[in-house]
């Protein structure tokens, strides 16, 4: 059972929010700040072997925002304000993560909205953060807070609301570039989200997503440290409570399931998030 239900986290977490076909109208905004913590010992190698390592610990503080520009356009941004990485055997390293800026366009509006977005991700994180071993001088491991490369996500998403429910589905392609001349493998994601609105102030969300990669690695060195070809199937359950017209609170737990793809280059660990949201219209 331990291997059937896994909670997942990776050195460079992929999107922690879902994608939808809705695009914010002009002046509408939504901001979410959340904190995630996980502690992990089970690592799945790029060759899909499960290893037990020293405990890996990661704390991340993200900010995510959406703003409607009008003319079917919205801008979205995601920025890890702080990422702290360590093994139990090392000192901690901290830094900002990689900045992602996303431009989203509504292809179809109405009851079945469809949107496309382009999201360049800039290597603003510390690509060579080195965590020193606590007991052996001069020994240590790279635990970067960013992957060190420029990449671009392209996403196509569709949604539909009915009664107290909504459903969204999306597919994304990540055009990765290279790090020091070594080319990463391209990634894809396919995901779906089901939302339920039991009361006027509460939303419950179930998110499922699969991330895979294309081809075989030519540069195994890009594996653990650079997050090459990380592959997983993730299931998240979240709740969002709108305390006032503008302010809300969110809670999330992430989980993984071992199909359809084998887990690769990823840590399995309890993964919990808490957030504060702010929304409104200018």
């Amino acid at each position, binding site marked *: 059972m331990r291997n059937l239900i896994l909670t997942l986290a990776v050195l460079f977490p992929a999107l922690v929010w879902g994608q939808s076909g809705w695009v914010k109208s002009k002046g509408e905004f939504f901001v979410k700040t959340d904190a995630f913590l996980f502690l992990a010992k089970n690592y799945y190698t790029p060759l899909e072997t499960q290893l037990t390592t020293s405990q890996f610990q990661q704390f991340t503080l993200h900010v995510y925002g959406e703003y409607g520009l009008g003319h079917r356009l919205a801008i979205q941004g995601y920025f890890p304000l702080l990422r702290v990485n360590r093994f139990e055997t090392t000192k901690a390293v901290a830094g900002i993560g990689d900045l992602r800026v996303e431009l989203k366009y509504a292809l179809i509006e109405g009851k079945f909205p469809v949107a496309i977005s382009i999201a360049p991700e800039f290597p603003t994180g510390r690509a060579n953060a080195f965590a020193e071993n606590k007991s052996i001088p001069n020994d240590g*491991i*790279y635990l970067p807070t960013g992957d060190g490369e420029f990449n671009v996500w392209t996403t196509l998403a569709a949604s539909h609301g009915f009664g107290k429910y909504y459903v969204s589905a999306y597919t994304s392609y990540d055009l990765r570039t290279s790090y020091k001349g070594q080319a990463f493998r391209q990634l894809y994601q396919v995901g779906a989200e089901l939302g339920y609105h039991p009361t006027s102030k509460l939303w419950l969300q179930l998110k499922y997503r699969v991330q895979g990669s294309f081809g075989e690695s030519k540069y195994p*060195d890009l594996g653990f*440290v650079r997050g090459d070809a990380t592959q997983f199937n993730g299931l998240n359950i979240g709740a969002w409570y709108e305390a006032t017209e503008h302010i809300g609170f969110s809670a999330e737990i992430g989980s993984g399931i071992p199909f359809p793809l084998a887990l690769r280059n990823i840590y399995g660990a309890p993964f919990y998030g808490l957030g504060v949201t702010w929304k409104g219209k200018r």
Partner: protein
Amino acid sequence: MKNFLFSSFLLLALAAMVISCKDDVIADPNQPTGTFTSQRTGTFVAQNGTASAGTAQIGTDENGDQFVKLGSDFTSTFATGTLTIYLSKGATYMADPGNGNPTLRLLGVVRAGGEQYFKVTTPVTSDFNYVILWCGSASIPFGNAPLN
């Protein structure tokens, strides 16, 4: 005048330091003195998908000090960071810090492939028959070489 005297004094002090440093040649304790004579040798077997390969030898220098030599063909995966290298009484890293790690001898930290020496500060007997590459941060073996 005061500035001139101060500058002259500084220059003299610097010159004295340079001359004194030139004369103090400090021997690298991790390098064998004279010829290294191999007694046992082995080839690394990679573990956990790493690129560990190449030869390891244990032997003595002309002073009788014991050294482990990694050959010029030695390589491993260094993209994750540094590795620690041990002499061990088995292929598996078995830490027992409460009893002084009787089956392990830490030799040092490895940062890159290629030829390098590690002095065995506390000489070992022939039952230390493996050289182990160990990622001390993640606690994962990267490879081992049986010494025969």
